[in-house]
């Protein structure tokens, strides 16, 4: 497969980096080539943060790119920040909990996922927000096997799951919810 390019952007603290990193690690664990790089700066919270991941059979060493195949925004001001990465056939996911103004994105038919609301109301756990977004993203990334991906997640979170076994089931359900919504 051609290298699939992902950009994700949101507010610091929303888990932007974790989502991109975990997707890259999980892709590696199922035998894909992957590379991830954060847009890291001095802000930890309270700033806009971006992450880039590339997945494929042969992934180049240069970690950035100009146009994305999958474009994910988790907050309103993220839209302008990474707008330039859109091309004609980019898949767009928005966290509609915070992204209300879709006027610039109409032609990409964004998949609106109210991950914040679902996490709070359906799962009663705001922390599974990430998992819902990740589930939606994975559905759109070619070549990633959903079951293998979930196995990789178990591996990534092994130490957390050991401490709190209920988290595993919760994460899995949230992931599947996101997957179904995309």
């Amino acid at each position: 497969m051609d290298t699939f390019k992902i950009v994700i952007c949101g507010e610091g603290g929303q888990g932007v980096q974790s989502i991109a990193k975990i997707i890259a690690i999980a892709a590696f664990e199922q035998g894909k080539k992957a590379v991830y790089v954060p847009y890291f700066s001095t802000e930890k919270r309270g700033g806009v943060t971006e992450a880039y991941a590339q997945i494929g059979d042969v992934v180049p060493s240069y970690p950035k790119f100009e146009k994305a195949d999958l474009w994910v925004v988790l907050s309103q001001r993220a839209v302008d920040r990474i707008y330039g990465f859109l091309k004609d056939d980019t898949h767009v996911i928005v966290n509609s909990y915070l992204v209300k103004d879709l006027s610039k994105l109409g032609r990409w038919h964004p998949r609106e996922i109210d991950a914040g609301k679902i996490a709070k109301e359906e799962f009663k756990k705001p922390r599974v927000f990430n998992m819902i977004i990740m589930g939606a993203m994975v559905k759109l990334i070619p070549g990633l096997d959903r079951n293998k991906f979930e196995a990789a997640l178990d591996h990534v979170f092994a130490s957390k799951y050991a401490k709190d076994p209920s988290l595993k089931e919760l994460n899995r359900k949230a992931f599947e919810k996101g997957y179904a919504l995309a």
Partner: protein
Amino acid sequence: MSEKRFLMGNEILALAARAAGATGMYGYPITPGSEILLWWAKEAGSEKGKKDGMVFVQAEDEIGASFMLLGAVLSGQKAFTATAGPGNVLMQDAFSMCEAMRLPVVAYINQRGGPSTSTVIYSQSEVNLTAFGGNGNGYRIVYAPSNLQELYDYGIKAFNTAWKYRFPTFLLGDGYQAKMMGEVDIYDPHERGVALVPTEKYLLEEKRDRPIDQVVPTPEVHIRNQDGVEYSCYRNCLNLEEETLQVNMEIKHAWDKVAHEIEEHETYGDPHAEILVVAFGIVGAAAKQAIDQAGGKARLFRPITLRPFPAKALRAASKGAKRIIVAESAIGQLSRLVKEELYGVTDAPMVEYHRPSIGISAEEITRLITELPEV
């Protein structure tokens, strides 16, 4: 015990130093290289680390860290530091002394934005500083890796080169390489037939393989025997211009003898392509992609050692080139080196693509190759 792992550049560098047999890390936290310190802090304090005599010191600042490193090397420890940007500036004080005395310190530099504090993110603007910083003449070895695997390979090699040739040796990475994560083959160098060069003490050495005044410039070292014991005294402050001249010429001669053995470069693409792209480090990686995208129009020359600069190889590569594109995330630090070596060798016009302290994508380089008017 070769193992494919998915790691961040900084973790790879930390592992490389360990695999090279380093036991000392003297540092000061600075983005984007701090994870190297974190790894060493954890490893050195572990049971295994203690058993192996690992030392980690978080110094008071980069001046302290670099002079501790210098002291550790004097004591024969295989030791290193890691820094970036303003930290690299402060460490030049110690690196200059290492250059003067031929002390094989190793430093992993991850270039960040400049000048001054700037961004913590990325640049290629520490070439001048790393290759020629200090008040000497730039007798240091600078490796510029271009991907995660090379971080590991050259992270190990830096120690061997430093101790074999006894020049300060740098691995010049950048914030992207430091912070990106990807696949890397982590191996034990012995299993690849890579022998580790042993260290030797400058102070308190009981048995030397070669006299120390064949390494340290002779005006700086005074050796005396008393009761069958050899005592070495080193000076860094010279009285006479003639002594200083001699120190500098001895360093130069030692360098001139071995520089050609150290030089490394990579070429990529159709050797008959008419456009020659010169880039190093992560921009070299982007350029490789661009060479592929541009379909045979261009080829790449990537210096792996920025110092000594692979001049002969560059001159050879310039033959047949109708245009030379130099791309770097700085203003003219690489292209100055290129021009110096190509002076009088080629008539090809040079396009200098300077993007200080910001990344250069493969697509940008592809446009440079394909969209410039024909020569």
